[in-house]
């Protein structure tokens, strides 16, 4: 079987690219880290890849606002290539900074056109790294199937508070079941800090496009692909449920979809 070719895009300040490549490789993909300049200069082409992952980090230092400058570069410098990727229904995954980029470039939710939401400063006004509980909505996005109802992943960001433009946008996301991940308490309830680490509206931690093929999420699946990534792995026997890690499952779903 030919391994699906996945692009892990990097720019100045990307910093989760290597581990994202490892996670994709573990899941059976052929993953490549490529600098954005290679595409802008035309030395490489987006259409040679079957999927695009925009990994976490601080693209351009998150100067001005997180993900903003890269979002503009995608819009103004790679518009046609990107549109073609979406048009040809190639999966796109944005993690953390990548999610911020997709939202600010208007690719998520993608309908209606233009930026419909944002990721703004955490209510605490500072960067925070912690593991969270997430309730998973599996109906629309193919990359989250076979996940338990509640999973755990780490978040590590300063600007992760999901804010829709208005009630209409929120209503659209809810109605179409595009809210893929929601911050919840261990028992699955919507609640406040620290379970909702940043004050996101409706606990929204990740959303997808109406066709489910563009997924953006603040939590880091690539940091939860082996059992020992979990912060309390020594508290649970080896045979327990964390054996199949949530992060690995998400990448595997993506690879399976491409195969």
């Amino acid at each position, binding site marked *: 079987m030919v391994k699906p070719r996945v692009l892990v895009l*990097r720019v*100045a*300040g*990307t*910093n*989760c690219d*290597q*581990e994202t490549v*490892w*996670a994709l*490789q573990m899941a059976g993909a052929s993953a490549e880290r490529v*600098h954005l*300049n*290679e595409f802008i*200069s035309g030395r490489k082409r987006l259409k040679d890849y079957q999927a695009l992952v925009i990994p*976490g*980090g*601080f693209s*351009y*230092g*998150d*100067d001005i606002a997180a993900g903003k400058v890269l979002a503009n570069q995608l819009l103004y410098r790679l518009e046609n290539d990107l549109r073609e990727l979406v048009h040809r229904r190639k999966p796109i995954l944005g993690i953390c900074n990548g999610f911020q980029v997709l939202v600010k470039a208007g690719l998520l939710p993608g309908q209606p056109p233009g930026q419909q939401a944002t990721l703004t400063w955490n209510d605490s006004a*500072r*960067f*925070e*790294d*912690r*593991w969270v509980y997430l309730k998973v909505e599996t109906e629309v996005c193919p990359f989250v199937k076979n996940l338990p109802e509640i999973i755990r992943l*780490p978040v*590590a960001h300063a600007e992760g508070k999901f804010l829709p433009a208005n009630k209409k946008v929120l209503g659209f996301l809810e109605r179409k079941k595009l809210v893929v991940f929601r911050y919840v308490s261990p028992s699955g309830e919507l609640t406040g800090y620290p379970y909702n680490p940043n004050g996101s509206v409706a606990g929204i931690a990740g959303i997808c496009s109406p066709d489910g093929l563009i997924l953006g999420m603040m939590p*880091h699946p*690539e*940091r939860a*692909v082996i059992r*020992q*990534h979990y*912060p*309390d792995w*020594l*508290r649970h026997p080896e045979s327990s449920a964390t054996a199949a890690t949530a992060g690995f499952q998400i990448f595997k779903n993506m690879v399976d979809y491409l195969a």
Partner: protein
Amino acid sequence: MVTSSQVKEINLLKASESELVALSQKHLLSLDLKEMKAIQRHFQRLGRNPTDCELETIAQTWSEHCVHKTFKAVINYHDGLEKRTRKVVCLNEIARVTRRLRKRWCLSVFQDNAGIIEFTDGWAVAFKVETHNHPSALEPYGGAGTGVGGVIRDILGVGLGAKPILNTDVFCFGPLDFSAEELPEGVLHPRRIFKGVVSGVRDYGNRMGIPTANGAIIFDPGYVYNCLVFCGTVGIMPENKIFKKVSVGDLIVVAGGRTGRDGIHGATFSSASLNKNIPTSVVQIGNPIVEKKLLDVLMVARDLNLYRAITDCGAGGLSSAIGEMARDTGAVVWLERVPLKYADLAPWEIWLSESQERMVLAVPPENEERLVSLFQNEDVEATVIGQFTDSGQLLLKYHDHTVGELNLNFLHHGLPRRKLQAYFHPRPPARITPENVEWKETLRQLLTDPVIASKEVVIRQYDHEVQAQTIIKPLTGVEQSGPSDAVVLKPLAESWAGVVVGCGINPFYGEIDPYAMAGCSLEEAIRNVVCVGGDPFRVALLDNFCWGETSQPESLGRLVRCVEGCRDFALAYGAPFISGKDSLNNYFRKEDGSVSSIPPTLLISALSTIPDVRKACTSDLKKPGNNIYLCGVTREEFGGSRYYHLFHCPGGQVPLPRPAETRPLMKKLYQAIRNRWVAACHDCSEGGFIVALSEMVIGGTWGAEVDLTKVNGQPLKIDACLFSESQGRFIVEVEQEHQEKFESLMEGQPVGLVGRVLPESFLTVKLGQEILFQFTIQELARSWKGAIGW
């Protein structure tokens, strides 16, 4: 010599002694008379005056920061304990340990930007810890950030470059509630320094994509005027990339950020005392993304073998970097080619600037084009600014003018060795002891002591999981609110082998007994490694001394005493030093002329390995019914303890490590953890046994019951059992099914079965059958977690 209008000749040849001293002061050279006279003699032989470029280059190269004059000085040391005087060279004492231990896994020590040890399967790890104290006191955010940036560049510039995988951070601040009225003008409040420093480390480290996952924070009034900021970086590299060698004819390439007027005189400034008249140019703001781009492209260039040597631009800027690289060859530098931030820099400023985020490479001419275009493709500037020659001279050109020509032999070997005086007198033991102690209230107050209290509000601001390699994270337990003793990383996708990093610091001991402090810091760093399952017989150490006014013989005597402690205990634990750094003259001269010095401070960082990270261990209590053992011997050792601090009792017996007792215990523990018989392990440090146990309870959210009569030691008073800070002690949780095996392994060791993990939500402390006090887990957690706000 032709001199351009921008180059000044310094009139040195005919200067009198007092004029030499004045020259050193005027140009902020931080050179003493003897050194100035050596320079004068050198130029008298040449029959000409030096240029500003030359004099500044010598001053930078000879600065305390760059050559460690005090550590290399011959010290006439009078030891008040032995009642005799002998000659000591501090650096030799430290280096002797490594030489004598002859560990074959030490691959590169004390010669490069960082120490390097063998890791696994052809990989090596490098570790360096630096301080950035003065800049952080003045501009906490920028100072701490550039401190992080600087030590990362050390790792990028070790051998042919290592990939950073971990940052460590250790800070010493004044008390956060220090009265603002008592602060003199120009001194920032400890709270502002605390927030600024943490934010600076956070923003630089997080943007670089390096997990910051090990550290410590100390609070003491002694750090109000001079905070301490230690930044460390660990890197990983293939073993065949650990050495570099410049070839004659190689091009000198500067890569990364542009050069401005930033940080001029940083190296000489860092060796001077602080006062309120500080030039703006010494403080800087870093740009982590420039450094991140540099890191990304350097790793590619390294693996393509495009350069033969590399080093970072740190203190002294290009002058230090190129001066060091050209040590055995020679070099010509065309200063006008250095890319500038703005146009009006004088040649000496270009040469001395400490602008951040720059590296210098030695590139074979045939690789120039490939290297420059590779860098260009990633938006990193790389510019040829000179060439290595075989002249033994450092030739500085500026638009065809020669602005300096220095003999490299003189530059690196012409510095006269300092001769210093030092004496040490032990402090007489104090007689005051705490009275009418209420146990429960004392424990509560110790848990809220900022030195002991949870640092969660700081730790969570660091991305401690980026790179997805952090297997034992800095916070552990059910809700990740318990403390971890050390960090464990799994840096290779294809291997389960791990890197373990811990640290030890306790200036409170050093105030009374710097020798014991050295032993305690060193042992604590190793204990931390042992607690998480690291190999105690493969520990490499880094020393970072931060001292007050070392021109005072008494202060210098304490330093010598501390160095001898490092030597003796490192030998006893079989742990070689692989890198070290000292920051001296951390004192503040007040308006009235009085001097405030920091407490004698030693940070020991430990780097070890674990063959399989799946056999690591954490400190949180795991399961009700499990046994709780206290391993090691408890003694009445309260000197410098947080317990004595709480009751304002100065002096006392500082804990003394006993390697002969502790080493065999560590060996057995390492084995027990590897066998998976140990459910949790935590060492006793500040606050003693009961504080350590409380932390395990908080992490695990299980209760515990302990009986103090089971504590190992001479007939002990209750306060010694609870709060003594005796070294060599570990609290170990063992499942009942492993009890027999564990106890038989531990036969002959000082191990006491002191209690059990309980399903109830209480910590119960008993003396035999009598309950001394009880604490709910919530009470413990609230006290410990609520003490340090943001």
